[in-house]
Each structure stands twice: as C-alpha cells, then as structure tokens.
C-alpha cells in the first residue's frame, strides 16, 4: 500500500486556540489592519502612507510600568491629542487584559484601543478553548505577534507600542515586557516608559526607582514620573484637580489586578504638586 494514501494526522490544521489566528484565517475582514494595511493597495491608495503620517490622528501619551514589592505597577496619563488640539482628556490607556495581567499602550488611539480589546479576547478565548490560562510568558509572546502583525499599519503612520505586565505564579514575581514596532519583545526587570513623554518619565524613574518599593511609595513614584512627563511634554496630561481627572494606576500582584482608588490618587497628586510649588 502506498503510504501517500494514509492521511497523516496534522495537529496544526486543527482549529487553533488563538482567536487572532482564527480571525486571520476565517474572518480577515474583522482584523484591525484590514482597513489600512491590506486594503489600501487594492483601492489604489498605496501612495497614501507618507502623507497620512501627517494627518491628525489622536496620539498620546506617557505610559509606564515598573516592578515593586508585591508585583508590578502599570500607569498612564489620560490625554489624547490631535495635532495641536486635545482630543480627549479622560482617555483610558491602561487596560486589564485578564485576572493577572494588564497592558498600556502608546501611539495612535484608535488602533491602540482596538489592539487592547482584541488582546483581551485573545487571552480569554485561549483560556476557554484550552481549559487553562496562558502562562505569563505565553501572553507576552502573543502580544508580540499582534504587534508584529500590525507592522503594515506602522508604515501608514499608525504606530502602536504596548507595555505588558503580568504576575507570574510559577516564579512568584511580577514581570514587565516592552515591545518595538516590529514586534520585538524585551523583558525588563526594573522599569520602562513609552509614549511622547516616555523619555521624561524614564528620567524620573531612573532617579526614584528602587527595587522592592512598598506599595504606597510605588504609587508615589509612578505619579511623580507622570507629573514630570506632563510638565515637559504637550502630549501628556497632568492631573486635573479641578475636574478630578487623575492618571490611571493599576497594581498587578498575586491576588490579581486592581485599580488604585481615586481618593488615594488625589491625595498623592496634591502632595506632589504642593512639593513642586515649594521648590
């Protein structure tokens, strides 16, 4: 009997546990880049990329993350800009993606929010199909794939740069991952910040970050970094005590993801601003 006739079991052809892969193969029209990356050349708009870079899509942002005593902290400002206009001052840039992970994003607002939403579904989808959640490392790799797949959109000027944090139950530590536009994934054991004010936030973090900061001190350092970034960068919004708009701060530890409540944020912000006044 000819062995060619025997169908060889092929696991890779099975329905994959990845939602992103499922959309790519079954419903490509629902993928974010369907609009820009692949559809543009067909419509004769292939020359659009260079000009589109100057179009006023909402951009941000300062988002940062660092490890602290119990896990990892992730935080971001709330401003979105369109050119010289402020597009939104209550935008949410830090997202809980499952029980033990969160991400923050910098770049073009629409694609950013869409990627966060898709990534959340991706993690949940895997957990439901497979019966258990992905490991922290697995989640970080999946996000890397999605950033890589976004590359055609980067060429159109729609950059999405995420920060990913998660609690790793096996190692019993919080972990922090940063990405470049090509999907390159780099783990950082200390801190990182991205966005238009990312450099300013990093400078503050460099000075004030210590290993194993206690929770209260960690929140203080995060807000100080965002405050300094807002001072230097037009794309970053500082805390607004009048309208009660404060940066988002999420803590990811053994118990899961939780928000730092507004009263605490307000108190810390006020104290930091008073300190600035005095100097």
């Amino acid at each position, binding site marked *: 009997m000819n062995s060619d006739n025997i169908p060889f079991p092929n696991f890779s052809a099975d329905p994959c546990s990845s939602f992103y892969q499922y959309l790519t193969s*079954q419903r490509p029209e*629902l993928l974010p880049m369907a609009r820009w990356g692949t559809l543009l050349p067909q419509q004769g708009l292939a020359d659009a990329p260079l000009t589109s870079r100057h179009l006023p899509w909402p951009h941000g942002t300062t988002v940062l993350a660092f490890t602290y005593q119990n896990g990892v902290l992730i935080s971001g400002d709330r401003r979105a800009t369109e050119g010289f206009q402020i597009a939104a001052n209550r935008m949410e840039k830090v997202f809980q993606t499952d029980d033990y992970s969160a991400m923050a994003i910098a770049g073009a607002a629409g694609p950013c929010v869409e990627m966060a939403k898709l990534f959340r579904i991706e993690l*949940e989808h895997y957990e439901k199909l497979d019966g258990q959640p992905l490991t922290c490392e697995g989640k970080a790799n999946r996000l890397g794939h999605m950033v890589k797949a976004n590359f055609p959109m980067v060429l159109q000027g729609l950059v999405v740069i995420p920060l990913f944090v998660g609690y790793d139950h096996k190692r019993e530590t919080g972990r922090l991952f940063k990405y470049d536009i090509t999907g390159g994934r780099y783990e950082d054991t200390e801190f990182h910040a991205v966005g238009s004010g990312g450099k300013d936030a990093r400078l503050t973090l460099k000075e004030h970050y210590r290993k194993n900061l206690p929770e209260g001190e960690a929140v203080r350092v995060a807000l100080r970094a965002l405050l300094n970034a807002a001072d230097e960068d037009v794309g970053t919004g500082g805390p607004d005590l009048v309208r009660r708009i404060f940066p988002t701060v999420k803590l990811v530890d053994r118990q899961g993801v939780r928000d730092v409540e507004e009263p605490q944020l307000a108190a810390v912000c006020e104290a930091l601003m008073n300190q600035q006044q005095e100097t």
Partner: protein
Amino acid sequence: MALPYYVSPEQMMQDRAEYAKKGIAKGRSIIAMEYSEGVLFVADNPSVSLFKISEIYDSIAFSGAGRYSEFENLRKAGIQHADVKGMMYSREDVTARSLANGYSQILGTLFSQEMKPYEVELLLAQVGETPERNELYRISFDGSIVDERKFTAIGGRSEAILTLLRKETPETCPSLKEALTLCQHAFERGADPRSSLEGLEVALLDRTRKGRKFRRVPTPEASQILA
C-alpha cells in the same frame, strides 16, 4: 451494475435516530439546575482534567454528553461564534438563545444530510440578571431544542434522573446547598449508586460575580457547600 437498495426516508431517519440514541445512552449524565444565585451544573465525570462543562461566554455555559470528539468540536465552534459576535457588536449581544439556534441548525443539518449523525446531546444555560431571566436549553442529536425551566438533564440516564428531580425539586428556587444535594441524590439513585462527590464535576454560573460568571467548583469546596 448493481442497483442501490431503496430505503424509505422514514426508515433512514429512524435508523439514524436509533444509532444516535444508542451512542448517547452510553454517555454519562449531566444536570443543570437553577439555584437562588445562578445556575448549577453537575456532571458525572471521574476525570479531573477532561471537562464536560465549559464556559462559552460571560454568562453562558455549555455541556455535552455523548461522543467526546463531537461535542468538543461543537463547544469550540460555540466559543468562536460567541467571541466573534461579542467583538463585532457588544458583549451583551451574545445570547444563549442565538447560540442554541446555531447548534440546532448544525445538528439538524448533520442529522438529515450526513451518513452518520452526531451522537451528542447538548445543554446550554445563560444566567440572567434576575432568576426569571435565566435560560436553559437542551438540544438533541437531531437539532430539536427544548427550552427548560428550573432544571434539566442530558446523557445516558437522563430520563431516570429527570423523573427523580421532578418529584423532589421544590416549587421555590433552591439554595446552592439544596440544589447540589438534589443533584447528588439524583445521580446516586438515578444513575450510579456508587457515585461520590469525587466523581462529580461541579461548575456554576454565579450571578453575583463581576464580569465572567462561570466558575468551577473543586471537590473540597463542593463538600464544604454540602456540609
């Protein structure tokens, strides 16, 4: 040339139904029961890693009896459908009713058009914001749907279990402890007298949870509930 035998459509359907029923009868049973704070699922399942009850979406759970590979395929298809729908519209737009319809279509088509019908019976439940808005659906191998109230059962000994439950379930909505006791007794007396808590897979659609309502209940916790 050999002539194909003539088989009347009635005969063909009857044969297929018998074949499917035989396959399902071999499978173990699963009960879904409404309790005061949601929907309780209990499956006769000795395995601790291969689950029969699973989450489909925020407030929807799925369970299958019969041939594993077949209801596993249906489960995956349901999750894919729900996640795509939730992404295209909104999370609240994913409903058990539309999923049940989808399953009914698939099973009905397979039953009438394929040589071998699926040997599965499905149970789909959605927990509502109030007990009146809970939904329980039982979908058979031929695609017929039954919309149930209070409780339902599928799998091998479902008839015996249902008869017992009809007699014993109170008029008012039971608490979690009462519901779990009822289900355990039904398994003991209706299906397997040697059945113990260790051999049962327990899961909840818990209305009081935020976001995703589905939760597995490990054996130690189940015995604590019963205590």
